[in-house]
Every structure is written in structure tokens, then in C-alpha cells.
């Protein structure tokens, strides 16, 4: 995606756009009249409003940023952070699911298996990539690549941005449940470092199937949830209109999940969201990967496996009476 493209603004950014427009108009006049005091005031106001909006994003607003059509997608990160990129294809049994991409990249002279869910940028690409909703074959391709990484001792880095595993007839026929379950189980058994990064939407089991990692990271405006806010609202509030309430109740933001101890780090985005500056976000992601890889390198294969298993063994909050 070209970053020169005009940014599509979100609802809650309207005050900023209004202010910005006002400033532009006044600046035009100012050129004639030299009346700059108002402009300076307005600009200060703009900065304040901006800070207020972006520092206090509600969960539903985070969802909108996480789903922003101009947000970088896994392939953007992958191709930006590595000079090499050899995409590998197919589950070997009948399909190459384009909703999941995977292949070899290189970071600091180390070969890494990169795997991600991938949305499309336009209708045609979205048809091909099924809006980033993987089929069982996609998860099986990922599993094949996990094994490949294990064989050659490649660390695994996953990029997660999916509404969820595809709920369709053929997906059920081809055993979506089993495909996800196997990935959960087999990821638990690998002896290479695994880093999972939720970059956009972390949609339920379909996201988790790439998420059983030694380190789970989230971009600042990404979300990760057991169910979509809309789906939850429809069931528990009996109307999708309550998605905002559901989003808040479910605790789906990076900030909430960090507090809950479910994720290990929040990777910062630029103000307004990653779509305002792809390059900066890619750089932040690359630095995060490098630093976690450095730490994980200190662990032996068996330690890596145990570390991962114990990490997930601990998750859950209950009372023991």
C-alpha cells in the first residue's frame, strides 16, 4: 500500500477534521490580513483535542482503528522488516489458503519462519483472502510451516490480524475445529522460540491458532477477544447496537490484556494509529522482535518448550476454596 494515499478518517476523529478545516480557512485569510493570533490559539486547541481523543480511546474506538482499511497488514510488516521473503505455499492436501501467508524471512542474519493471517486491500483481494478468515487448510499450512521451522531450528514469528476462523460449510466439512485444536497442541510442543504479535484484530480461536507463543505482543491499537463485540452484544444484550458496551465489558484492548497478564508487551503505534505511519510501526515491530528473540535465544530448546507450556498453564482466574 502506498502511504501517500489520503487517510480515511474515523467517526471519533471528526472534531479534529473540523478544527483542521477551520485552521486551513483562517490561514488562507491570514495570508491576506496577517491576523495570526486566532490561528495559534486554534492550533493549540487542535493539539489538546487530539491528545484528548487519542489518549482516551474507548475500546470500540480501538476496534475501529484495529480494523482500519489502511492499517498495515502482516505482509506489509513481513516485507518491510526483512530483506528476504520466500513465501511457501500450500497444505499439500488440496488448497493454498491465501488468508494465511507464511514463509522465510531473515532478521539479524537469522532465518525466521514468518506466518500471518492476511486481509485484502480491495474486493478482489478480499475474495481471494476471504477477508482474512482462514480455512482449515490455512491452519494446516501453518502447521506444516511450524514443523518446517522446528526441523531447521527457525524461530517462529506470527502476525495476527483476523476477524476469526471462517464459519462456512466447507470449513466445517474440512474440520475447522480439528485444524485449530491441532495447532494449539502442536505449538505447545515446539522447541524453537515463538513470538506472536497481534497487529490488528485478534479474533477468537482463529487468532489463537497462531498465538501459542513464548511471547505474545500486541500493537497499541490492536484487539484480542474471545468473541467479536458485535457477536457478544447480539447474544448477551440481544442487539448488536450494544457492541460498544460489549467491547468495554470483554476487555479486549492491549492495555486491558496487559493488565490481565495475558500479553507480554504493548508495541507503540504513532498517534492516531498505525495507518498514519506504516514505516514507524514496522520499525517498532522489528525492534520488538529483535529484543524478544535476543532474550529467548538464552533458553535451551527444552526450556523454550517448558516456558511456553507453563505460560499458558498459568492463565485463568478462579477461586480455590
Amino acid at each position, binding site marked *: 500500500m502506498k502511504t501517500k494515499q489520503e487517510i480515511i478518517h474515523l467517526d471519533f476523529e471528526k472534531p479534529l477534521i473540523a478544527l483542521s478545516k477551520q485552521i486551513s480557512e483562517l490561514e488562507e485569510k491570514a495570508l491576506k490580513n496577517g491576523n495570526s493570533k486566532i490561528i495559534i490559539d486554534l492550533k493549540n486547541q487542535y493539539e489538546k483535542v487530539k491528545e484528548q481523543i487519542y489518549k482516551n480511546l474507548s475500546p470500540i474506538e480501538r476496534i475501529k482503528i484495529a480494523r482500519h482499511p489502511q492499517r498495515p497488514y502482516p505482509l506489509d510488516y513481513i516485507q518491510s522488516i526483512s530483506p528476504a521473503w520466500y513465501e511457501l505455499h500450500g497444505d499439500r492436501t488440496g488448497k493454498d489458503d491465501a488468508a494465511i501467508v507464511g514463509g522465510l524471512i531473515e532478521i539479524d542474519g537469522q532465518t525466521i519462519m514468518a506466518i500471518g493471517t492476511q486481509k485484502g486491500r480491495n474486493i478482489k483481494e478480499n475474495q481471494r483472502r476471504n477477508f482474512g478468515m482462514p480455512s482449515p487448510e490455512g491452519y494446516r499450512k501453518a502447521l506444516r510451516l511450524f514443523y518446517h521451522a522446528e526441523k531447521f531450528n527457525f524461530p517462529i514469528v506470527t502476525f495476527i490480524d483476523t476477524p476469526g*476462523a*471462517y*464459519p*462456512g*460449510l466447507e*470449513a*466445517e*466439512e*474440512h*474440520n*475447522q*475445529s*480439528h485444524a*485449530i*485444536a*491441532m495447532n*494449539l*497442541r*502442536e505449538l*505447545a*510442543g515446539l522447541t524453537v522460540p515463538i513470538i506472536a504479535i497481534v497487529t490488528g484484530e485478534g479474533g*477468537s*480461536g482463529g487468532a*489463537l491458532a497462531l*498465538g*501459542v507463543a513464548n511471547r505474545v505482543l500486541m500493537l497499541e491499537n490492536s484487539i*484480542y*477477544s*474471545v*468473541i467479536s463485540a458485535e*457477536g*457478544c452484544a*447480539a*447474544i*448477551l*444484550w*440481544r442487539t448488536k447496537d450494544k457492541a460498544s*458496551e*460489549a467491547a468495554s*465489558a*470483554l*476487555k*479486549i484492548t492491549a492495555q486491558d*490484556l496487559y493488565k*490481565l497478564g*495475558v500479553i507480554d508487551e504493548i508495541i507503540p503505534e504513532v498517534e492516531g494509529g498505525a495507518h498514519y505511519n506504516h514505516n514507524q510501526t514496522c520499525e517498532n515491530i522489528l525492534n520488538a522482535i529483535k529484543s524478544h528473540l535476543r532474550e529467548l535465544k538464552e533458553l535451551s530448546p527444552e526450556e523454550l518448550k517448558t516456558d*511456553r*507450556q507453563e505460560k*499458558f*498453564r498459568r*492463565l*485463568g*482466574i*478462579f*477461586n*480455590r*476454596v
Partner: protein
Amino acid sequence: MGLKDFFKTRQLKKAAKLQSQLSTNGNGHDLKVEPSICDDQLCVLWTKCQGCNELLYTSELKKNHSVCKHCGHHHRLTAQERIDLLTDYGSFLEIDDNILPSDPLNFKDLKPYKDRLKEAEKTSNSKEAIITGIGSINNQPVAIGAMEFQYIGGSMGSVVGEKIVSLAERAIEKRIPLILVSSSGGARMHEGILSLMQMAKTAGILKKLHEEKLLYVSLLTEPTFGGVTASFAMLGDILIAEPRARIGFAGRRVIEETIRQKIPKDFQTAEYLLENGQIDLVIPRQNLKPLVSDLIRLHSQNTKLKTGISPFSKIPLFAGV
């Protein structure tokens, strides 16, 4: 008002009541609510079959493990009934009954989660959505767990995850087979991401169990969906389902909304899964115990060939539970 009408009215009322309680099951799959066969005094004598509408003597139906003698319909069993069906009389000793749900997210939709928990306990007469313990099947020790669908749709939250992991750890410690009976709408929304993480947590311990070469028989009963199917339930060495049980990843309604077409009638039934290569066997309830018993026997007798040690130690049943 004849006897039939009388029952019809009663059952409609009960169904409505249960619907409101169970609408929160798991990920909200569109699972037909089945009124418990008999839970008040007026229903003591007669029960109306969910399959063929025949009126049946409740005591006879119970004796037949809640399978209708006319049409073979398998009515749902409670977790305790399931344990009684499978284990030798008096052999079952529950473990981890002190692990109880909390409200980690302070979750509130139209009702606080705390209230739902209390109601669920009353409705289901169970403290959570699973019972686990050690018992024997024809004198063969097993670690066994059965889910309670009446408890918030058998949904998996932190307690279910913890109890399954703890049970599997006993199986590993004692080198005895693991038997899990699923019946669930999926992950429990009210614990948000923590419920999702139970998928990875249960799958992770099953990796260990698998590496220890211990037998895991997974029994899928009406209904098993979502995060439960997509984690531990699909990972059995042997997968068995009851006739007509509905099993799948996504719920029927979600799929219909997604693909905008009607779904074949037998979709996601046990028989459909068998035809699509997803499970090993569909077995009527009355044959379950002999089958599971014989499978355990067959899986116990060979390992001495290789290591000189039987895979399932014949330690005294309740030693150190």
C-alpha cells in the same frame, strides 16, 4: 385439558425460562434448549420424548440412560449421570470440587456475571460446567471428566480449563487413561480473553499426555461447539460421538448469516462428522461403557513389548488421589 396438552403447556413454559437462562451459553450458538427431563414433582411420573413426543415413564427412561425406547432419541444427561453411566458403581471420587468460578472482568451485560453464576448453580445443581475425578471402568482406573451443559451452556471459562488440566496431570502422574465427555456451547464470554486462553491451556496439557503415550478418549455429546470442539474435544486418540449429537466449530446460525444459504439438515450431526472423516465412531449410549472399557483394555496390553512397563499402571485405585 388432556394430559398431552398439560405437558405441552408446562414444557413450553419451562423452555422459555431455560431459554432466558441459557441464552448465554458459550459463544451463543443457536442450540435448541432441551428442558431437563424431569425436575419438578408434576413431571415425576411421565416425561415427553424430545424425539418422538411419546409420553414415557420417567423411571423407565432413566433406567434406559435417557434413551427413548420408541425412537432412540438420546436425551441429554447431566454430568453426574454421565459419570454414573461410564464408571463402576461407587468407584468415582471427585477431585478439584474446591475450584470455583470468580468474576475476573467484573463482567456485566443485562445482568451481572456474578448473578448468572448463582442462577446457574441453582438451575444445574452443579458448581461449574464440569465434574472431574478418578474412577474405574470395569475395574480399569481412569481419569474422567464430564461437562454439565445446564451450567451456562457447558461453557468453558477458567474453572473448566483448570479442572481439565488438573485431571490430565493426574492421568499423567498415575499413567491412566483420560476420558473427557464434552457438551458445551464453547468458550464462556463472561471471562473474556481468559476463556479463550483455556483452549491453549487444555491443548497444551494434551501435548504432554500425547508425548507420554497415554490414551485419551474424547466423547462428544449433544451439543459440542466452538472453543471446546476447537481444543481438547477434538484431540482424542479415539473420538466417539452419540447418535444425532450436534458437533461443530461455528454455530448453525452464524454460518447461515455468513454464507446466506440454507444448511443441509444433517449438517454437524455425529453421522455427518463420521462421513466427513472427523470422528471414529458413533455409538448408542447403551454400548458406550462396554466400548470404552474394551478400548482401554486393548490400549493397555501392548506396551510391555517395548519398554517392559505397561502404559497404564495398575496402582490401587484411590491411592493418593
